[in-house]
């Protein structure tokens, strides 16, 4: 805290700074609006307690403006913060005699509360710096390195945390579930042989181009193979028949409907994709 306090407040320097230039839009380093506000507040170069919230609001709005100008897509919280700060700023600029609406907190208190939050965040920032600057085990300081030399195992504490307990529990339950995993009924398929027989049966009647959907057997009831299986197996079987020279298949384009027709009379014309042996 004491580091943040500067006895000689250089207001002139702060006034000269154009917020738009002083703050380069770089969201990568910031977690959220509060972090941006803290970074902006530092550019004022004053103790956070003496922060000008009006000025901070202007800086922040300039930051948002700049981000938008550069087509940065700002997360919603940044925009909500912007509108809140704009509102706070306008209230701060109102003559004091003007009372806020019933029950609303005086603008000065809201400003003070914001300054408090920034101070708190800054204190935590400094705490991170102070903690990580300490000598860390296995990085800066080392305990006895020889594992075979350690005979005394501390016994008056048990290394089991609630987290480990939770983790152990969840692992168990997952494993239990996998053991009891029941894949359910085997999916029944429309057998290829059955599809071939079916096609041979209907083939004599396929004198016109008929769509695959119409050729494939229709599913009856809830039991048995699915409609997709009927369609897929019928297609496979039809390709075999094409290979045998018993029928033709055509499709206008990829993913378009497939048409089947027996080989022989009445062959259609036109530029179509045809499977001809």
């Amino acid at each position: 805290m004491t580091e943040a306090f500067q006895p000689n407040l250089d207001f002139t320097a702060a006034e000269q700074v154009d917020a738009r230039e002083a703050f380069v839009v770089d969201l990568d380093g910031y977690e959220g609006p509060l972090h941006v506000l803290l970074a902006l507040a530092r550019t004022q170069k004053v103790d956070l307690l003496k922060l000008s919230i009006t000025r901070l609001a202007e800086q922040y709005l300039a930051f948002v403006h700049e981000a938008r100008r550069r087509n940065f897509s700002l997360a919603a919280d940044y925009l909500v913060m912007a509108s809140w700060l704009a509102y706070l700023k306008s209230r701060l600029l109102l003559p004091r005699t003007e009372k806020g609406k019933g029950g609303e907190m005086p603008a000065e208190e809201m400003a003070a509360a914001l300054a408090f939050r920034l101070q708190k965040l800054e204190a935590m920032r400094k705490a991170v710096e102070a903690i990580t600057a300490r000598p860390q085990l296995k990085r800066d300081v080392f305990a006895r390195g020889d594992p075979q030399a350690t005979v005394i195992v501390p016994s008056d504490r048990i290394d089991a945390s609630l987290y480990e307990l939770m983790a152990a529990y969840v692992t168990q339950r997952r494993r239990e579930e996998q053991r009891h995993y029941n894949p359910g009924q085997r999916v029944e398929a429309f057998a290829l042989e059955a599809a071939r027989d079916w096609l041979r049966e209907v083939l004599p009647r396929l004198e016109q181009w008929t769509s695959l959907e119409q050729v494939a057997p229709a599913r009856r009831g809830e039991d048995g193979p699915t409609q997709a299986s009927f369609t897929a197996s019928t297609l496979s079987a039809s390709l075999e028949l094409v290979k045998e020279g018993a029928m033709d298949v055509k499709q206008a384009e990829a993913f378009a409907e497939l048409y089947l027709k027996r080989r022989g009379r009445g062959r259609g014309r036109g530029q179509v994709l045809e499977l001809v042996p």
Partner: protein
Amino acid sequence: MMGIQFAPDHGEIERRVEALLFAAAGPLSAAEIARRLPEGADVGGAISALRERYQGRGVELECVADRWQFRTAADLSFLMTEEREEPRRLSKAALETLAIIAYHQPCTRAEVESVRGVSLSRGTLDLLLEMGFVRLRGRRRSPGRPVTYGTADKFLEHFGLSNLYDLPGVQEMKAAGLLDLSIPVGFELPDPSRAPDGDDEPLLPGDEDAPEFAQDFVAED
């Protein structure tokens, strides 16, 4: 006189050798030590000085096969063996058993085994009972009248819970990243604080030793 001392003095070399020997995973030769020190450092002198410094202390600097190592004084070996057996970490099996008992209490040994999918070795439950984490709660009113287990006060104390209601729930498991956003189907967390105690018969004094397989023909159901 130089303002900055470029060559570390004897005392500093001794400190460094001391730290290196302490942190090393095994005995170090003088050459190995020298390699980590400024050129020309008097490693032999530092080792002699350290040897003398630790002479008669609880820890001594010993030479084994031309390598140097700190060892606890031989006459204190009697201190070192004691209590080695005491558990420091809960074994995986113990932790898992404890977790199931905590969330599913009162539950029987068979129920723990059914969740874990392996049979429980005798020592695991005994250990938890002995540590005071687990206690016998009663007997299940079901054939065989198996003993049911629950957690004891020491469990709450160790994990800093004021009561069973405070056990982390599904929300916390999710927050801790243990459960995916998609909770496995059928994952229900029992609420151990609302465990139906009526399900169980209280243990009678002296009942604890009764063999679990004893059939109770007067059982209600």
